[in-house]
């Protein structure tokens, strides 16, 4: 099985490490290794039809800052010159246009290649188009890691809860906001906690996507489309961020034995992201950088999952689960 990785930052490198760690498991399960034949970062690419040692790719990237020696202008041109079976698209997300990630996914699906992505932009903007493209070309599009990182939610709803009528999903889908709000529970002001989050690497230098709720909104869109079969985009979400949450608001909530958390909510009729009052001890009142989701279905009732929403190996773990799902699907078709 030949894999091409687009995007060789934290997640791309983490996936290579996970592939190396699970090499024997994959051989035992499928009778063949998973080979990385290509990798691309923002400026360079490396391609070898015989495959690379994934750890060697990581080492080169960490040593030189580049994954390959060849430079490129158009990522689709690189992909069109390569032979591979699965595209792992983990390039930086662009929620306004979908960016190069969208074009890479479109190219791969249009050419009958399976795709695994954690890139939220293309999914939040062109979900239905991408699903249709995959179906019309008889290939798979998997995106478990795009919502909640290592926390299983999409495959949980689609596979394990397949017989259920899912009424709603609400949850904490952004670890950065949850870190900030739970730190504010201890009396720290927003600006101070944001700075701390940036110093600890939880928040970007430009934290707009996180604190204005845009990142959570992308995830809500993906859930609405993937789980509820809706046809919505980022622009359909009613979004309120956390920038106006004051210390006063936090302490008034605390005096009523509640905390404030940024909650994404999706159902047949709702598509919202906003701060919510959560009773202390409620499953949605968790602290720190964790993500959590509460799925309400007609037979099982509420099912709650919690996990690490981001991180090198955690997100790679979700990509591995998608890889296994695709390889199982291919084995069934054979």
């Amino acid at each position, binding site marked *: 099985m030949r894999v091409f990785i687009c995007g060789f930052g934290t997640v791309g490198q983490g996936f290579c490490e996970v592939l190396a760690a699970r090499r024997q498991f994959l051989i035992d399960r499928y009778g063949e290794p998973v080979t990385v034949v290509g990798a691309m970062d923002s400026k360079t690419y490396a391609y070898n039809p015989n495959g690379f040692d994934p750890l060697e790719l990581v080492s080169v990237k960490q040593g030189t800052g580049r994954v390959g020696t060849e430079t490129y202008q158009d990522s689709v041109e690189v992909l069109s010159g390569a032979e591979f079976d699965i595209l792992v698209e983990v390039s930086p997300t662009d929620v306004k246009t979908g960016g190069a990630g969208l074009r890479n996914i479109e190219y791969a699906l249009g050419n009958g290649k399976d795709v695994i992505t954690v890139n939220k932009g293309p999914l939040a903007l062109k979900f239905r188009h991408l699903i249709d493209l995959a179906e019309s070309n008889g290939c798979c599009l998997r995106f478990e890691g795009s919502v909640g990182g290592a926390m299983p939610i999409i495959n949980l709803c689609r596979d394990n809860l397949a017989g259920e009528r899912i009424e709603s999903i609400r949850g904490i889908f952004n670890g950065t906001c949850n870190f900030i709000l739970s730190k504010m529970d201890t009396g720290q002001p927003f600006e101070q906690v944001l700075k701390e989050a940036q110093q600890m690497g939880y928040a970007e230098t430009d934290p707009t996507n996180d604190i204005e709720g845009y990142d959570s909104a992308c995830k809500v869109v993906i859930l609405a489309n993937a789980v509820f079969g809706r046809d919505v985009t980022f622009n359909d979400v009613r979004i309120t961020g956390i920038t106006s949450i004051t210390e006063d608001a936090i302490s008034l909530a605390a005096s009523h034995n509640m905390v404030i958390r940024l909650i994404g909510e999706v159902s047949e009729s709702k598509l919202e992201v906003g701060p919510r009052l959560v009773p202390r001890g*409620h499953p949605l009142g968790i602290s720190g950088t964790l993500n959590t989701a509460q799925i309400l279905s007609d037979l099982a009732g509420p099912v709650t999952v919690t996990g690490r929403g981001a991180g090198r190996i955690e997100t790679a773990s979700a990509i591995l689960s998608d890889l296994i799902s695709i390889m199982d699907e291919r084995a069934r078709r054979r």
Partner: protein
Amino acid sequence: MIVNAELYVKDLPGQLVGSLEPISVVDGNILGVVHNRERIVNHRICINITFEAEDDQLERLKAIWKSKDIIISKIGTAYETFTMDYMLIGDIDARYIERLINKASTIADLDGVEVSYSSKTGDYSKRTGMLSVKTKSQEDLDKLDGFLDDECRRSGITYVRGV
């Protein structure tokens, strides 16, 4: 409607059933009965009954109980309430909240509203108010939620509702 009644019946066999039968006579539906043998007053035992009945049948029921020498010590309506908390952050004061509640009560049937404020900040644009609202139906809560969300967006106030 749902009615809760506290009755005192003679401490004799068959009195409990005798107090329940009239509810069936008026086409009522018994939801719960507590036969409180520890509460005896003047050789009478306390029975607490919760039942559903039509409003216009209540006087008839009371008349039947009285004719059977059953003492009605308390009777009142009980109903399920739906509660939700809402927080507003922005340029708000007591007059604004009062106007908002008055307007909301024309849209949804509010059973009770408690308001609390935080006045720690001197910044008028970041005042915080919290409304704890009770309604008689989920539908009223949904209407209220939509109304508050729209009003707050229009006024540039951050709206935080409960889960």
